[in-house]
């Protein structure tokens, strides 16, 4: 499973202009080409803006909704859960078309906001389910104890609940960021030359010519995912992360 990713990284060190494995000679020339290219660097900034935006939006909505659902189970929760899952089952091309039509109508197509909202459709369910299982494992007697001592519920949330679930929050925020960073089909529909993210630019340049610079970019993206995943695994464990992704 990992072999293809290793091959991508290997081809990024190629000295020739062709994408081939194993590379004939090694060099860092495609790395310097990447850092000299304004278009790639701007795409990098775009990815960062969209990723951070998605993380904030998805984490906020996911945590509040999971907490609300856990604090009081009602019929709204029963309707909410399937609706939250549904976007994950719809082909991204259809989501892209749908949101392009909608955002054009509203007049903010190709903006950062449109991509952030689209990515939140995929990132929020993950946050929601991670946080739901975190809240389920939380010892609610601690909350009741805090309430009995006279603290108001918001203070209990900040001083009692939050410290106990912060690793869960970290994991869900990391996942939300990675989801946004890697998503490309919706971004392809919703971005333009100014706002295109790294995967979109990679895709567009791939369709023109297959140069190792795409492997360089891929190497960066893979490294970011590895770091994020290791951080998430350290905060909880790999098994927990793996199960929540399904």
């Amino acid at each position, binding site marked *: 499973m990992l072999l293809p990713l290793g091959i991508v990284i290997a081809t990024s060190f190629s000295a020739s202009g062709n994408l081939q494995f194993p590379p004939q000679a090694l060099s860092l020339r495609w790395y310097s080409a990447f850092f000299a290219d304004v278009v790639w660097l701007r795409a990098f900034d775009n990815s960062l803006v969209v990723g951070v935006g998605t993380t904030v939006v998805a984490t906020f909505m996911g945590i509040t909704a999971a907490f*609300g659902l856990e604090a009081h189970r009602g019929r709204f929760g029963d309707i909410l859960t399937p609706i939250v899952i549904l976007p994950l089952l719809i082909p991204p091309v259809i989501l892209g*078309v749908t*949101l392009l039509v*909608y955002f054009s109508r509203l007049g903010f197509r190709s903006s950062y906001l449109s991509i952030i909202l689209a990515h939140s459709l995929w990132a929020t369910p993950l946050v929601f389910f991670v946080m739901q299982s975190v809240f389920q494992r939380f010892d609610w007697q601690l909350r009741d104890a805090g309430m009995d001592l006279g603290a108001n519920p918001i203070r209990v949330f900040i001083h009692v609940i939050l410290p106990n679930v912060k690793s869960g929050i970290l994991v869900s925020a990391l996942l939300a960021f990675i989801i946004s960073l890697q998503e490309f089909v919706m971004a392809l529909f919703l971005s333009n030359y100014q706002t295109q993210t790294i995967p979109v630019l990679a895709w567009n340049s791939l369709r023109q010519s297959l140069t190792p610079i795409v492997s360089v970019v891929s190497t960066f993206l893979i490294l970011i995912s590895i770091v994020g995943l290791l951080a998430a695994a350290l905060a909880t464990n790999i098994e927990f992360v793996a199960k929540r992704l399904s």
Partner: protein
Amino acid sequence: MSVDSRTTVLDRLWSLFEGQSGSRRSLLLMSPLILFELLVFVVPFLLLVRISFSEQSQGLPYAEGTFTIASYVQVLQSELLQGIIVYSFKLGIIATLLTVVLAVFYAYATWRASGVRKSALLFSVVLPLLTTLVIKTYVWVPLLAPNGTANSLLLAVGLIQAPLQIVPNTLGVVIGQVYIVFPYAMLAIYSVLTTVEWELVEAARDLGASRIRSFFAVVLPEIMPGITVATVISFAWSVGAYSAPALLGAGSDRPFALEVQEQMLVNFNWPIATALSTVMLVLMFVSILVIYTVLGRFGGDVTNAT
């Protein structure tokens, strides 16, 4: 001092909620997500359906305020589009079957492994899952192209005389698509598998069942809910495949996603693009219901699964 001011802010914030009942409060907490799903998911889909009933226009993406079923008639009558729909479903079925079978084996191996080996097996699945589709697709080009690694290797060993045409070709599309959906399918099965008790399998073996028999008689029925979820995910995403056919396919590898993208962004024919999308959604929804019903017969009822 700062602690004091924070206290008063929190107290004031709480006074807003104090009068509400528990269910109202939790509804208030859920309201951002509910609002979001309404405005960014439900309403856009209603608009999609509305535009699919608009007249096609020369200069504009669609003619506003018109109503016609012409685009649906066109989608359902055009042989080209029918071929595209059939191709999408064929790809979906083949990729799903391969993925689910491979995923069951991999999930089983991960379940039986322990310690570092188990973590490594999980990591190998989660990392590709968190890697962009673009990378997961294009990596197969240098590997499987006529002058790529696999062909050079096979030629050097003498197994083949001429390079195999795997990419660009349908075989390449299937390989790429299976690689893309495999992690999701594996994890769906794995998370159910971890709830199975190994003692059950041991008991079956003690009673004389072979390894294979104990798997089919004991493990498989238990993990059917996971297999159902894996099948639905793999199917939905493979029918909607975009990157693998675009990059690894030949000209004849044309699923609906490519057609929709072209109608939408190149031809600016929005009624056709939206009508085709709607038709595909309905067909996929029906297929998923069929998958649920069929696999549900074999114990794949997912209502009790995580």
